[in-house]
């Protein structure tokens, strides 16, 4: 594992490579901040662009964009309530309320610090435990992914903005239906596609996301006469107290991030949502306001999780040659074109390459802090721009982003459609995040249920029965039951008695 450690120094000692990484991070932050323009897309564009380059500069730019882009998504979530990337959906839950209180600068400062801490955590785990986690990740069976996604559905309970669980479940159900459109994963039979070829490929969940968040937010802001909030930018670096007090939460969220990121079927978006859910259930005294209204903890958890997922996603990519998420899938493709196929053979024949990558991640993380912190004052100005100028710009960027995902005009119509739907959902206090959650999770539940049952030769009872004999499934079930139990009133009563808590 520590063979070729000298490779770590290569990106640290070459000014040229450092410059490439810095450029990557810088571009990544801005690409990530624009809704719809994703890291995956930026990296795949770079494949053609860097075709004639040497492999190391190409890799450095891509790693830089990866780091910057994952983090940049939170920017637009905090400032505009429009997440720039799926991984940033959760960052807007509390980030935007903070911005509305005039604390956008501090929120972004906090998100930067947490992203850097989370990514460092991910890198450390990548260095120390990569082979171990890789071994664990291939043991996840379809039934475990099923349970994991099912667990993700618990999140609906955390998304009840107006307090109505029924409304959250309605929007989640809608999302589940949208997520099931397209080809059946086992038979290829079209579902809800009305015999048009255009729906056979399903509706991309990023389209649903930027429609329901982006377009609908533009519509809402057009209607409401909200004057821009004057932002305080005197302090952007979060106080040491806020960071130190939340270190346990940061570590728990980063762990969630690394593990979810390392699983080949799930990525940073699910990690961030799960970490947010975890924070909401475990943090008893959010500060300065309750969750959903502007809690630092609501920003700390998803930010550290989605950044830690970067290191996580690279674990199966480097050790097994299997992508941990969509970006690493493209990254593998790029490296193959440059004549390197990540995986066990590369680890054995060129172990220093692994360390070059770790070094590049390390450098990118330093630049993340530098660019993240220095850009905040300019970014906060965005929310102070008059609505009549800002909203058209948002709509244009959203449409460009939506089009560029699959280069499809039909996607723009869907996006506008979901924007109008999202507008009405927001008007009547239906939490739109629950819908996006449904769209993200339902294909995972569906595919893995079908796959798992097929592996048991079509026996549904064996599919569920074997959950009780597998350690991984049992652990997941235990976490689920414990989560549900700890929310119930019984738990409070029992724990009061057990621990003789009197001052409750």
């Amino acid at each position, binding site marked *: 594992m520590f063979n070729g450690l000298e490779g770590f120094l290569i990106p640290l000692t070459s000014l040229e490579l450092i410059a490439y990484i810095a450029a990557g991070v810088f571009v990544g932050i801005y690409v990530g901040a624009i809704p719809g323009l994703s890291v995956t897309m930026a990296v795949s564009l770079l494949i053609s662009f860097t075709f004639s380059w040497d492999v190391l500069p190409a890799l450095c730019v891509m790693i830089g964009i990866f780091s910057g882009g994952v983090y940049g998504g939170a920017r637009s979530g905090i400032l505009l309530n429009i997440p720039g990337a799926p991984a940033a959906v959760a960052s807007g839950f509390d980030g935007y309320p903070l911005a509305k209180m005039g604390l956008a600068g501090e929120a972004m400062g906090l998100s930067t610090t947490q992203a850097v801490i989370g990514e460092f955590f991910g890198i450390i785990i990548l260095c120390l435990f990569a082979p171990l986690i890789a071994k664990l990740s291939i043991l996840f069976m379809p039934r475990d992914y099923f349970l994991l996604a099912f667990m993700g559905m618990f999140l609906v309970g955390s998304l009840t903005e107006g307090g109505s669980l029924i409304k959250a479940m309605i929007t989640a159900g809608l999302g589940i239906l949208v997520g099931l459109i397209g080809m059946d994963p086992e038979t290829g039979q079209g579902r809800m596609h009305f015999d048009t070829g255009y729906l056979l490929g399903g509706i991309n969940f990023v389209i649903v996301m930027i429609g329901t968040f982006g377009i609908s937010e533009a519509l809402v802001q057009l209607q409401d006469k909200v004057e821009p909030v004057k932002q305080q930018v005197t302090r952007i670096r979060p106080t040491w107290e806020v960071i130190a007090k939340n270190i346990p939460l940061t570590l728990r969220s980063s762990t969630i991030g690394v593990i979810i990121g390392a699983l080949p079927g799930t990525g940073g978006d699910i990690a961030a949502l799960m970490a947010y859910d975890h924070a909401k259930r475990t943090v008893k005294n959010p500060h300065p306001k309750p969750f959903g209204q502007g809690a630092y903890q609501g920003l700390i958890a998803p930010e550290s999780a989605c950044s830690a997922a970067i290191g996580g996603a690279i674990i199966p990519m480097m050790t097994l040659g299997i992508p941990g998420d969509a970006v690493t899938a493209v*990254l593998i493709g790029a490296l193959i074109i440059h004549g390197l196929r990540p995986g066990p053979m590369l680890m054995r024949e060129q172990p220093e390459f692994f360390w070059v990558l770790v070094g590049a991640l390390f450098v990118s993380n330093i630049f993340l802090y530098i660019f993240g912190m220095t850009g905040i004052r300019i970014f906060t100005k965005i929310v102070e721009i008059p609505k009549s100028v800002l909203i058209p710009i948002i709509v244009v960027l959203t449409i460009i982003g939506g089009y560029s995902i699959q*280069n499809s005009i039909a996607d723009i119509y869907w996006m506008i459609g979901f924007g109008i739907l999202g507008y009405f959902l927001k008007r009547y206090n239906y939490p739109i995040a629950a819908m996006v959650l449904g769209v993200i999770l339902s294909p995972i539940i569906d595919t893995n249920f079908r796959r798992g049952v097929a592996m048991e030769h079509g026996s549904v009872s064996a599919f569920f029965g074997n959950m009780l004999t597998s350690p991984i499934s049992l652990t997941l079930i235990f976490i689920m039951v414990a989560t549900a139990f700890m929310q119930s009133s019984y738990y409070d009563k029992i724990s009061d008695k057990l621990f003789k808590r009197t001052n409750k």
Partner: protein
Amino acid sequence: MSKKFAWAVLVLVTVALIAAGCGGTTAKKDAFPTTNINGTIAWGAGGGTDNVMRTLAPIAEKQLGKSIVLSNKPGAAGAIATQYVYDQKADGYNLLMNAENPQLYQILGLSKLSYNDFEPILLAVQGSTVIVVPKDSPYKTLDDLLKAAKANPGKLTIGISGVGGQPYVTAAILKKVEGVTFNPVTFDGDGPLVTALLGKQLDVTGLAVGAATQYIKNGDLRALAVMATKQNPAIPEVPAITQLNPAYQDVLKASGFFYGVWVKKGTPEDVIKKLTDAYMVAYKDPKFQEYAQKNGLTLMGLTDKEAKDFAAQWQSQMAWLIYEAGGAKESPEKFNIPKPAK
């Protein structure tokens, strides 16, 4: 006031964008190409088709003097991109970059189109599938596997990438020649199949040689046979299935998967020729040749009639094979796909 202004700008911008989207390339016929060319890749970024096309395009565009703007339009096994290019003008400014799949769209009910609606520019490379099992699997040879499958019909689990995909075709070929059946479980392609096999969740699967090579060499997976008439230079130690049993010779005449570039039928001949010439230069470039060899792909370099004949023969073999294995929605007869000659 400013609200009205915002609405006005919003409407204007939306209209402008839609108008921009509708405008096509208006090209002069004489000096092709006068503007940039669009290359629509029918599969996602980072996949096999994507890699081959992104390796070829930078060299081909130098020959043409204009850029080839690549974009991925994945979905429905490439049927969405195929339909998209078919809906554009037949002027050579829209290239379809796809794999073998359109030859099966009709029988699988995915689309009415096939490569009969397009003209080939270049059939670049052909890939084959290798049958692999986990490293500590009890099946040391293909014979072991077939014996176990015969003793327990439909019990051994085979990972496939969907009906019509290469592992599915492999299972169908084994069924046709040996009469063995497996329990198919669908995964989303080579990566997830490797994951499941490394995790010993499957008994057997078929992988593209390029995707499987490093695991075979590292001893993580055991290769039983290559589904081709010749051994693959990337893994020369693995026997071709025809060496184990010559009965496979017929069905493997035109098989495996292939990647290529097409334009819509009706494109002027001189345009096709110019594109073909440019792509042939890219194909012969050492960088591409090296890429193909490293990734276990067999070089084809077929154009024009040769390419059409190969595609037709492939369709006849595979469409009937899948139909007979029970995987097709429609009979190949309905689309005038001839039965393969014995």
